């Protein structure tokens, strides 16, 4: 087993997803198949190899510190599911 049901539940929590019981079984088994397939990478010798994080070699992609106009408040809230006044609203945040 590459990943247990408990681990899937933990990862689901980190990713803020929930699953029904039967979905959990299906996902766990599918993820196991996939992770088992990933095992093949273990046979590649990667000693001394740098990881590739970008498909391009650039650095210092800067912009100057010049201000452009902001979205107006109405525009920024136009897609908000539940705006209140000038704010975005969320249900109570429990620490």
């Amino acid at each position: 087993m590459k990943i247990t049901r408990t681990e899937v539940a933990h990862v689901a929590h980190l990713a803020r997803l929930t699953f029904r019981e039967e979905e959990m079984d299906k996902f766990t088994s599918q993820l196991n198949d996939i992770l088992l397939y990933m095992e093949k990478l273990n046979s590649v010798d990667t000693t001394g190899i740098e990881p590739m994080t970008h498909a391009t070699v650039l650095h210092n992609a800067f912009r100057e510190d010049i201000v452009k106009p902001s979205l107006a408040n109405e525009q920024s809230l136009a897609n908000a599911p539940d705006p209140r006044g000038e704010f975005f609203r969320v249900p109570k945040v429990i620490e």
Partner: protein
Amino acid sequence: MELYSLTIHELQDKLRAGEVTAADILTSVYQRIDQVEGKVHAYITLMKEAAQAQAAAADAAIRNGDIRALTGIPLALKDIYCVQGFTTTCGSRILHNFVPPYDATVVEKLRAAGAVFTGKANMDEFAMGSSTETSYFGVTRNPWDLTRIPGGSSGGSAAAVAADECIAALGSDTGGSIRQPAALCGIVGLKPTYGLVSRYGLAAYASSLDQIGTMARTVEDAALLLGAIAGHDERDSTSFKADVPDYRAELARSKGRWRLGVPKEFFGAGLDPEVGAAVKAAIEHYRATGCEIREVSLPLAAEYAIAVYYLIATAEASSNLARYDGVRYGRRSAKAKDAVDLYYQSRAEGFGDEVKRRIILGTHVLSSGYYDAYYLRAQKVRTLIRNEFTAVLRDCDALLSPTSPTAAFKLGEKSSDPLAMYLTDIYTISVNLAGLPGISVPCGFTTGGLPIGLQIIGRPFDEAGLLSIARHYEQAHGWYSKHPSL
């Protein structure tokens, strides 16, 4: 011939000659949409009224002598780029009502080039899929056989071009999402070098792999469209400061007699014999017309690309898709009791299974204790795969291979087996890992009448060369003149 089945340059000749107006072209395309969209379902959103205004503006511009690269040409946009004022869903329920307040850079550029937008094309949810079956808005059908998938994730764009529901389209390609549907729908699909086209405004799936590209009936149209969208953009830090040549003009200057590599591992088990035969026939055409064909080897790319891709792409996706939370935009669950529950419920209701599967996988491979074994290891093998391509392309102008191991499969055939679906991208995925340009051109049909695609992989930023090589074959065979009967 109806106007809707012509190419960009044919229509432009007619516009310039005053034979037709942009309004005529749009009317023709919309007549075709009315005829076939019910069968194909290539679009999520149609933009008819706005398109009519754009066509009217194009006609006014033409009257003023202002004809630009795409003036009056109706194009479909994959529903993954932001278009100001039009719903941009990414094929997902969680964005079903999202209306962007801004245009993606490519959209801005197409507007500036005078294009007309027919609508937003269907796609796999957040570009995660190879069949357009994961869309929340229903499946798109292959115009050559309505019981089959069009490929994916840019299946709507490919089907729209093939079914003549637009003249050309934009797609996005993270692991083959332009080339594979292009092959399966019998059109030309170009994924440019990573960094040639700005990603600003393209909803990210896997940022280090995503690239916007063109889908068209001919190589010349693909070249024309690429010229309109390529170029450095200050708003995308991964955008390359390269000169954008006149790709269409470059086609005419092409020298021929290229050295072309054929990776032997791309013709192994899993390749459908009919597809293999068509691709080999295309390779023979190059040999027969004076090209040097050499067998090359890409063992790591062939063996490990899928594993590397699904580790890297899902890791990036797990983070890229965290923003879909029902707080600032998109769909919010009505069930949420508190802020944490808001995330759980909105995301559980808003995302489909494939997206959830990839988020879970990506979260897992980045999580504490697994990062080195999965994500970091995949990045290192990615380096090796890129090096492998670099070495081979030192001696070859381009590489030839099948685009997809099979022609279009049946709807539902692979939707219950994610891994089987992942394996359909076996020839395209390594190109994204290496950041190289790749194009799929039609190279024949199966006995069942399904299109087959030839993939050509080029050197970084040598889109001009790649397009010339593709055009060389296309002109000799003219598969593009065939249209599906709908």
